[in-house]
């Protein structure tokens, strides 16, 4: 029992000494009113303990009477000092503080005036008993009151701060009881159960003070569980936010629950993203405008800050929580950067969509305009052509050659205009109408087109080499082949020879180049790009001219497959090259279409293999 008592006493002394040293170190580091009163309170208590231990246990003698009086005065002042420490956080009723000050002064005077201190076991003189009763009365009256105030201060604070304040409240209360009980203790040397209980209470109180002021990391972590959870929730939530406003709305309540602060405001890029509990007197507009205001603590984030209006307990008890807040601010910063990126992306996408819509609308409008225009142009053309025909039929006999030639020219021109209108209409439709691809046998198609053209131009010779099947809209593919062959026939003369061949592309892996070459006069290099423009045409040998739209249609048809068409540097005649990507080739496209079933067949075979 003695050993246990010794151990408890050792723990108690060590605890008070630790709190004293801790308070002193803190005061050396942070010179605030709070740390000053805290240091005064616990350095004196720690000093009393240290000196007592030094004399009793190390030197084995009682301290001199004068020193004993000094230690007792320090002990008597403990409640007053603790009250002043509390007063540095919140207003303590002046009357209460004065009564305690007066009581402490009276005690001090009594300590100085006492003739002597009885040895343990000696009978106690009346004056000593009066002193003892007064001493205990002051402690018992003061410490629980101070404890109650600590307890109350914890309301609405983050868990860690609340627990620390309540631990201190318990420590103060237990300490006062310890003193009360130990004053009732008889001075006997024998250590009985009662003495042990008193000793245990004192130890508990000292440990509670340690926990309240400087909780070890493991205790802090467990007390902080709620805040950590809140922080975790915030981090999960923040990573889901997609706008700065959401970040603000989510962050502010979490900040409040993590840190002891009156108010919180999140400001970025000149915008208030969220605020809570900001004092009415605070000039938020100034903060938003980027001017710092008094009474706030801020955590910088990119292009803004998280502002806190701390309460009086925040600097002393909330220091660790402020560090948690740093993590939260970092998360918020990330979330805001992410939201900004998402916002930019959204805006870009919306802009693109709008532009796309506009383009589509413009295209549709153009198509409808070209259609209407061509239709409206066609009606009068049909009339003109028909009237010309009527005139020729009815006046043919009466007209001389020259007048008949006039009529013929009228008819020719009207017919030319009709083909212009028709080609323009086709050009506007390529890539918009008739786009569904099919497998097209280009060799057969070319032969067909050749036979059609030979009806008009029997001297035309077309040699068709081995050509791949393509994956194109058949109507468009026919337009492409027909326009190119017509072009060769028109510019190459009546007996032009045309070769249609294919070769693997050197530009796109798996692509094919179709070549349409003739032995005509060729196209001068300076016109090789120009001829693909609308209404661009070169002089034809027979003086006639095409609409100048055929090659433009070819280019549009090829472009719609993702390919390219150009005129090569081939000498002696014109050579058109059409580059078709693998996706426009029947073999590639069909193998891509059938690849899934064939793979599953392989899998099925693999399964039945022994």
């Amino acid at each position: 029992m003695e050993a246990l008592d010794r151990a408890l006493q050792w723990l108690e002394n060590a605890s008070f000494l630790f709190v004293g040293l801790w308070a002193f170190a803190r005061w050396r580091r942070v010179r605030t009113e709070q740390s000053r009163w805290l240091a005064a309170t616990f350095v004196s208590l720690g000093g009393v303990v240290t000196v007592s231990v030094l004399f009793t246990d190390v030197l084995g003698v009682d301290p001199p009477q004068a020193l004993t009086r000094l230690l007792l005065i320090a002990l008597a002042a403990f409640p007053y000092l603790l009250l002043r420490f509390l007063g540095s956080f919140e207003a303590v009723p002046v009357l209460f503080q004065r009564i305690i000050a007066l009581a402490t002064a009276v005690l001090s005077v009594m300590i100085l005036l006492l003739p002597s201190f009885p040895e343990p076991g000696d009978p106690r003189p009346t004056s000593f008993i009066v002193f003892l009763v007064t001493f205990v009365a002051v402690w018992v009256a003061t410490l629980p009151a101070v404890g109650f105030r600590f307890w109350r201060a914890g309301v609405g604070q983050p868990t860690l701060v609340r627990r620390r304040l309540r631990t201190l409240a318990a420590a103060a209360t237990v300490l006062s009881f310890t003193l009360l009980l130990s004053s009732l203790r008889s001075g006997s040397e024998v250590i009985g159960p009662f003495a042990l209980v008193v000793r245990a209470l004192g130890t508990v109180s000292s440990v509670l003070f340690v926990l309240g002021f400087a909780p070890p990391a493991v205790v802090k972590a467990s007390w902080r569980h709620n805040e950590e959870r809140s922080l975790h929730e915030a981090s999960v939530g923040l990573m889901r936010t997609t706008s700065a406003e959401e970040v603000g709305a989510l962050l502010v309540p979490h900040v409040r629950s993590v840190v002891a602060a009156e108010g919180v405001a999140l400001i970025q890029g000149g915008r208030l993203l969220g605020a809570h509990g900001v004092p009415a007197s605070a000039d938020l507009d100034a903060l938003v405008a980027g001017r710092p205001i008094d009474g706030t603590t801020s955590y910088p984030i990119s292009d803004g800050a998280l502002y806190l209006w701390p309460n009086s307990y925040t600097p002393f008890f909330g220091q660790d929580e402020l560090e948690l807040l740093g993590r939260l601010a970092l998360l918020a910063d990330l979330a805001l950067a992410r939201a900004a990126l998402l916002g930019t992306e959204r805006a870009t996408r919306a802009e693109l969509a709008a532009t796309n819509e506009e383009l589509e609308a413009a295209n549709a409008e153009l198509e409808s305009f070209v259609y209407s225009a061509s239709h409206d142009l066609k009606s009068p053309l049909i009339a003109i052509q028909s009237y010309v025909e009527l005139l020729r039929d009815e006046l043919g006999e009466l007209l001389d050659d020259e007048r008949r030639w006039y009529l013929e020219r009228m008819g020719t021109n009207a017919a030319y205009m009709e083909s212009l209108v028709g080609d323009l209409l086709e050009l506007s439709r390529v890539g918009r109408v008739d786009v569904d691809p099919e497998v097209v046998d280009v060799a057969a198609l070319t032969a067909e087109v050749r036979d059609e053209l030979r009806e008009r131009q029997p001297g035309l010779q077309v040699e068709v080499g081995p050509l791949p099947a393509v994956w194109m809209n058949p109507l468009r593919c026919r337009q492409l082949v027909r326009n190119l062959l017509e072009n060769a026939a028109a510019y190459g003369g009546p007996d032009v020879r045309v070769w249609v061949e294919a070769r693997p592309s050197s530009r796109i892996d798996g692509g094919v180049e179709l070549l349409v070459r003739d032995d005509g006069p060729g196209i001068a290099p300076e016109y090789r790009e120009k001829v693909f423009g609308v209404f661009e045409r070169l002089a034809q040998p027979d003086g006639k001219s095409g609409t100048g739209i055929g090659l433009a249609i070819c280019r549009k048809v090829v472009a719609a497959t993702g390919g390219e068409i150009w005129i090569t540097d081939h000498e002696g005649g014109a050579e058109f090259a059409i580059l078709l990507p693998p996706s426009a080739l029947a073999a590639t496209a069909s193998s891509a279409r059938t690849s899934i079933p064939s793979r599953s067949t392989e899998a099925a075979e693999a399964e039945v293999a022994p």
Partner: protein
Amino acid sequence: MTTTRILLVDDNEDHRFFIRRALEAEGDDIVIDVAVDGAEALDSLYQRGGFEDRPRPHLMLLDLRMPRVDGLAVIEQVKGDPDLRSIPITVLSSSARPEDVNGSFRNGGNSYVVKPASLGAMRDELQAVRQYWTEVSMLPDPPA
């Protein structure tokens, strides 16, 4: 041979002239009634608005793009009316757009001819159409 009555609906005066010429060139017994747009065509069919005395036509030749009521709407109206739906409608338009051709048949049009730019071709086309709808094929008569 009985007289064939044809209702010609076209807003273009020149086209009406050529179509009339082409039809009359056949030398058959033909009476041509004219409507200058879709609204007038419907008035004519319903014998109202000044056309109270107009007999029912054996065949309609109908343009598509016309003011007031266009050709597609006329087809829809005529083919939706049990009393009129047996009148064969041949669309005669300068448009060869698939949308127009398909639209005409979808609404119930019976044949579609793209206006040729030559009188001779016009004559041949119209003769074929007229013969088909008056001599080869007849749509079921309206219920008595």
